[in-house]
């Protein structure tokens, strides 16, 4: 059984239908890259999986947690899938450690000492154990994004959603973030990532989804999708003739 089951999902913003019936199944441990032009609906799809957007039709189920727009179901869903954002979205008034501790204490009611232990472990995992007491302002973009990853991991999700997590970074900082993601993939974390890093998608992902105008246009193993694009839209997107 698939870990994330997306079935016939439709979503519209006013008159604009951005998702026109999307169905994707993600198995445990899979790393799925979603690629496509801006406006193709890839970020919206990702945000729906985390309940940040409502859906108009279809269903999303993550490890038995059905996406329904009420507080109880949203919480259950979000405890299973963590999300990492393009703009990091660290809490500016808390240290790196505080960022990683907060939701553990608030949502899971973890005692402070335990939350701190987890936070130190997670920051160590992303190579930032020494930045526990640093404020987000004092960190580089790449470091902030790694703290954001640690913050999501601290909730022990079974899948992580990455929404263009390297797009706001200076080129020289992209590698350190991707290295962390690669490590997570190697450890068996289920990842769904919207990305523009084609090389990374090719090297690390088990499947690539090409979205076009609100639909899954092509889907397959990276070697197929990148080497033998079947549709003119994907060929154009990849810049191959």
């Amino acid at each position: 059984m698939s870990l994330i089951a997306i079935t016939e999902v439709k979503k519209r913003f006013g008159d604009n239908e951005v998702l026109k019936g999307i169905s994707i199944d993600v198995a445990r441990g899979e790393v799925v890259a979603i690629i496509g032009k801006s406006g193709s609906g890839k970020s919206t799809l990702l945000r729906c999986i985390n309940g940040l957007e409502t859906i108009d039709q279809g269903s999303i189920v993550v490890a038995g947690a059905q996406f329904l727009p009420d507080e109880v179901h949203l919480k259950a869903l979000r405890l299973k899938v963590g999300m990492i954002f393009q703009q990091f979205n660290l809490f500016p008034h808390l240290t790196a450690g505080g960022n990683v501790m907060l939701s553990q204490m608030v949502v899971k009611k973890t005692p402070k000492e335990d939350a701190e232990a987890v936070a130190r472990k997670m920051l160590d995992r992303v190579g930032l154990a020494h930045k526990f007491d640093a404020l987000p302002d004092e960190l580089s973009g790449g470091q902030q994004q790694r703290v954001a990853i640690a913050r999501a991991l601290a909730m022990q999700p079974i899948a992580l959603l990455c929404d263009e997590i390297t797009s706001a970074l200076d080129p020289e900082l992209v590698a350190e973030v991707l290295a962390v993601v690669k490590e997570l993939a190697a450890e068996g974390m289920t990842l769904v990532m919207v990305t523009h890093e084609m090389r990374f998608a090719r090297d690390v992902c088990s499947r690539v989804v090409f979205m076009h105008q609100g639909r899954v246009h092509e889907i397959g193993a990276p070697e197929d999708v990148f080497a033998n694009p079947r549709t003119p839209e994907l060929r154009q997107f990849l810049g191959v003739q």
Partner: protein
Amino acid sequence: MTYQFDFGWLIGSLPVLLKGIRITVQLILIGAVFGVALGIACAWVRALGPKWLKPVVATYVELIRNTPFLIQLFFIFFGLPSLGIRMSELTAANLAMIVNLGAYSCEIIRAGIQATPRGQFEAGASLAMTPFQTFWHVVLVPALQRIWPALSSQIVIVMLGSAVVSQIAAEDLTFAANFIQSRNFRAFETYIVSTLIYLALAILLRQLLAGLGWMLFPRKASR
């Protein structure tokens, strides 16, 4: 024309003055703490709260912001007893200041909340926090930090405005000054002294608020 200054009365009037200072300080401390707390609650309602409560808070805020403080004070002290709600001068003064600051600080704090980047709410939500948990743990402190100078000014304004509570015979600093000058007929000197005390209190209050901000909000180690 030469005016002969005489501050000889000062020593004899010291107890009255000190009591006035004590009452004024007490008024502003209680007014600030509960007024800002009320302001935070109202700002939450107006920015993020349940729909049905919004018009209630909006009415309160606009009512207070568009009527004179003195009238609000008279309403509470002289008006409410007609409904059987009676209170001492001091309680009425406290209540009036809380209600007044609550309305003004609501709007200031709301501006701080509404300037919060959407990503902060989304980050809180994605970590399975409820909207209220996100407000309380994520949004509130940076929002207060954003508007802290404006809020501090408003608190000082309310402190200075507290002078009018002498009109319902609450024995604050202005009441004390009026009382003293009616005895010594030295209005000029008496109001010079009380002006200087207000000035000192206001500067002290600003320092206190700046210090509080320094404690509440994180700072870079390098700054």
